[in-house]
């Protein structure tokens, strides 16, 4: 039991430390490679099923033969890896931010099905990690070129995102939650791969050259810092 708790807590702590470097300080890293590496690490950690899916399966009693195999991601619930890879960098970041906002909302909905305080704590920690990851996405978006032309307000507030259709059937809701978490971890795995590809081919897109982005991002960072107080927290800049 103690080991299980460690397994759950340790990655979260690591994630917390990773997040400390940017959002907690209230400013973004202006080094592209450094930020990219951090996003990769965060995605690698968030893809671990021990953070959310495994404790959920256990608390809901879904760890039985005949049930486990139904705990699979529903097609279309999350963007596939191919779809993510086909996106431009800016579109990718926006999709990621949107999807994670949806995840946050869904996790909040899942809380009512979790009676144990310990599991609730795990869930809340995961939500904090997602929020931190979204902040890093925001920072990365600042380093990409053309963001000023294409940026749209990305709703990250769970209250404003489209809510899933909850069913009153507890069993079905339970299965859906399990499928959702499975999809979430798979999605984060794909996200990590995309970020890794970014690192392997830094000049993949001439339009999205990291050097250019870095340069522009630095300039924009200065601007954004000036207007920082005007931006709602957790929202990407316009």
């Amino acid at each position, binding site marked *: 039991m103690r080991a299980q708790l460690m397994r759950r807590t340790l990655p979260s702590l690591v994630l917390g430390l990773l997040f400390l470097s940017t959002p907690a300080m209230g400013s973004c890293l202006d080094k592209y490679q450094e930020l990219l590496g951090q996003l990769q690490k965060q995605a690698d950690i968030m893809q671990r099923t021990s953070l959310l899916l495994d404790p959920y399966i256990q608390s*809901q*009693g*879904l760890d*039985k033969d005949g049930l486990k195999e139904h705990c699979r991601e529903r097609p279309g619930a999350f963007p596939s890896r191919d779809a993510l890879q086909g996106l431009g960098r800016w579109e990718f970041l926006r999709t990621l931010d949107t999807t994670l906002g949806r995840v946050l909302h869904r996790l909040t909905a899942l809380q009512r099905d979790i009676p144990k305080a310990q599991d609730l704590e795990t869930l809340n920690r995961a939500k904090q990690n997602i929020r931190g990851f979204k902040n890093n996405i925001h920072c990365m978006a600042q380093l990409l070129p053309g963001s000023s032309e294409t940026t749209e307000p990305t709703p990250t507030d769970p209250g404003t995102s489209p809510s899933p259709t909850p069913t009153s059937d*507890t*069993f079905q809701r*339970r299965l859906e939650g399990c499928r959702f978490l499975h999809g979430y971890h798979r999605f984060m795995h794909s996200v990590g791969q995309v970020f890794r590809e970014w690192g392997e081919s830094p000049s993949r897109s001439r339009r999205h050259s990291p050097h250019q982005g870095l340069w522009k991002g630095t300039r924009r960072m200065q601007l954004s810092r000036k207007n920082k107080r005007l931006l709602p927290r957790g929202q990407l800049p316009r």
Partner: protein
Amino acid sequence: MALFSVFQTTFLLALLSLRTYQSEVLSEPLPWAPESLRVFINSTHQCLHLQWSVHNLAHHQELKMVFQIEISRIKTSNVIWVENYSTTVKWNQVLHWSWESKLPLECAKHFIRMRSAVDDAKTPEQSFWSNWSSWEEVHVQNSLGHDPFFVFPKDKLVEEGSNVTICYVSRSQQNNISCYLEGVRMQGEQLEPNVSVFNLNHVAFIRETGTNIYCKGDQGDSIKGIVLFVSKVLEEPKDFSCETQDLTTLNCTWDPRSDTGLLKQLSQSYTLFESFSGKKTLCKHKSWCSWEVAPESQEMYNFTLTAENYLRKRSVHLLFNLTHRVHPMAPFSVLFTDVSATNATMTWKVHTTGNYYTLLCQVELYGEGEVIQRNVSVEVDGKQLFGGLKPDTEYRAQVRCANANHFWKWSEWTRQNFTTAEAAPSEAPDVWRNVKSVQGHSVVTLFWKPLSKLQANGKILFYNIVIENLDRSSISKLLSIPAPANGTELNLDQCLYQIHVTANNSVGTSPASVIIVSGDPGNKEVEEERVKGMEDGFSLSWKPQPGNVTGYIVEWCDHPRGPLCDLQWKSVGPTTTSTVVSSDAFRPGVQYNFRIYGISTERVPYLLEKKTGYSQELAPSDNPQVVMSNLTSRSFTLSWKDYSIESQPSFIQGYHVYLKSKAGQCHSGSEKAVLSDDAVCCKYRIDNPKQKTFVVENLQPESFYEFLVTPYTSVGEGPHGAFTKVTTPDEYSPILIRIILPMVFCILLIMIICYLKSQWMKEKCYPDIPDPYKSSVLSLIKSKENPRLTIMSIKDCVPDSIEVLNKQEGTRKSLTETESSKATYLYLLPTEKSYSGPGPCICFENFTYNQAASDSASCGHVPVAPVAPLSQLGLLTSPENLLKALEKNYMNSLGEIPAGETNLNYVSQLASAMSGDKFILPTNPPEPALCSEYKMQMAIPLGLASPPSSGSSSLSSVTLLDEGEHYH
């Protein structure tokens, strides 16, 4: 109940049949039949709610009626429930009735109908049943979705141990559906072609998130299920109790028992209701609740504690008088005043709980294993005096209080510690001594035991020792030994001394302990007795002394084997003649020696008895080191004189000698013994532990034996370790040796004699020709430190001139070129004509030998005695004469050498043939010339090495120098 219901139903049916008959006869409809019957479904609770009304009632008319309700399942003829619902019907009233189905309503169609009858005494004529209403069909399946199958009931909440019916409804009859409870397949029964039901009996609580029950089609891709929330049964709160500490707030507590909280159901809530005041409060905590006491003087309280969850309620009641439930707060400000060595006063305060309450306080004092308990009645402040306390002792005091009038509970303890003051030591230290005589003086070592805490009455700071010489009473000496010393050493003379020892603390001095010490240690020789140790020590007893004794002292060493003896003693009274000596230091296998002293009235100790023993005897762990001697063909001797019997782990009673032999026969004095390895041997027993030698006899010659010597004690013998091997010698060998040795000696003696005789014969008859190189003269010369003197080798020397006589070819040849095959005679002639002077004395000097030559190894000046071959010597002259002549010349030549006189000395030269000196033939017997300093010169015929080859050899003779040439 059911029986009664059936009876009632039967009765009513009979009655109603009669009424129906009557109505038919009368052909008048019942005016108050149920109308507008509607059925509502509550799937969550599996309930059917019926709603209807009764018309034709007059305004404000109330009528007691009975409504009979029939419920059928699947088809109308399958009636599963009949119930008569009696109620008073008012004008324009809508009536309700509910029924909970065991089977989920979705699992089957249900049909409901009802009829009514008046059951009112006011209208007895109308007491017959109305017509049945039409059947109302309830078919929930119609409203289900388009999924292939469904499972019911959804999210049902039941208590642990309940029976639950579950069903699935399939859209198609062909679907092969399997259902599982937490992964375990369930066996159901078919209710309809597309409906199966599963009855779960005594469902158990599994987890707070509920029990998963699910069904899967044969394809396995679709899954439907429900969560059955099984709650623990709500239990009645235990140990419900209320009390007050300050008469303003009541604190009620209980044991909530198990938590019935689930994902769907919150934990049970608790409500406190007081019936006298009618007040009610919802408790915020699970196990306690506060209740404000009414300001008016309400003494009696009747509480009802209700625990409630979604399924059940439980209540407990409590009635009490407030003043009887006072639990005072703990006293405070506990202080000690006037603390002396034996007395202390304790004071404390209590919280006020009203104007008229008296508290009973309990005071306890703990110290040195004693408890003093007092009860004190207190209103505001408490006070208690404690006497008879022990000096310098820490006491722990505690006080608690309770309502004196109506005891309910003691308050918590309030504790405080204090320490009494010191007092002078109450007892004299226990003193003993050890006396040794060293060079006419007495070395007295005084020992004393530290006073116990009870005796010391404080911290002992030092010990005072007063030494008083009894022979010269005027002389006394004072020593002060700081604590925590427990002894000191005194050097005293042979006089009689009285020693006083006192212990001192900060307050005063203890009584003195007095002991008399004299030069005589008093250790008279007494016989030592053995004692047997017990588990708790040694039980010692001694003979009572006829004279007056003031007591006895038993003395021993805790560590007799250690370098420090750690002397211990025990004092007993004069009437005691036995005691048990115990010590934690006693170890098994260690010998302890006890000395028992009597203390005379003059306080002089004298030795009475000695005891020795083991607290526990152990078997010897080692065997003695045995030395074997006197080995003969029939016996040998064993000895182990180095074996100390005093340092053994038990009293040695004797020894066993084990002897193994191939023969296996044991002679008298021994017995057969079987060892642990099943080896059979002979065992000899030695009963005297001081006997450390043993002769093993009756052995066989040339036999192999093994022996072992081991001590034996009362607890066993030593280890049967390695045996020592020995083989007896041959019986005849000594005899043969006794014969052969003298014979050999005799033979050797005879041989020596024969040899000497033969030597004598040899010397007499055919002596050896002396070898000049082996002459002792050489060593004599060496001893005279003239290393240059040596015998010249001819080949190393260049002659001054060589005159060849009897030259056949007229050719001169050097000496080295001479051929041995020819008879050639060489004459050595001096090149210098000088000589010492005319006359018969000729001094021949050869200066060839210079310093450098003399130093060379090849030209050592070694005098060589002339040697002549026996064959030729025999021909020339008699051996004796020849020897004499040779010796004489030889000696003369030696005599002429002035050893160490000069660096260049002439030494007799020997003209040698190339082959060596062996065949030097003296050509001429030495001339007996007077005062001649000429050393014999020998010309060696070269051909002497081989036999003479011609007849001229008969003429050959060694011709020395021509006299005419030599004597100028």
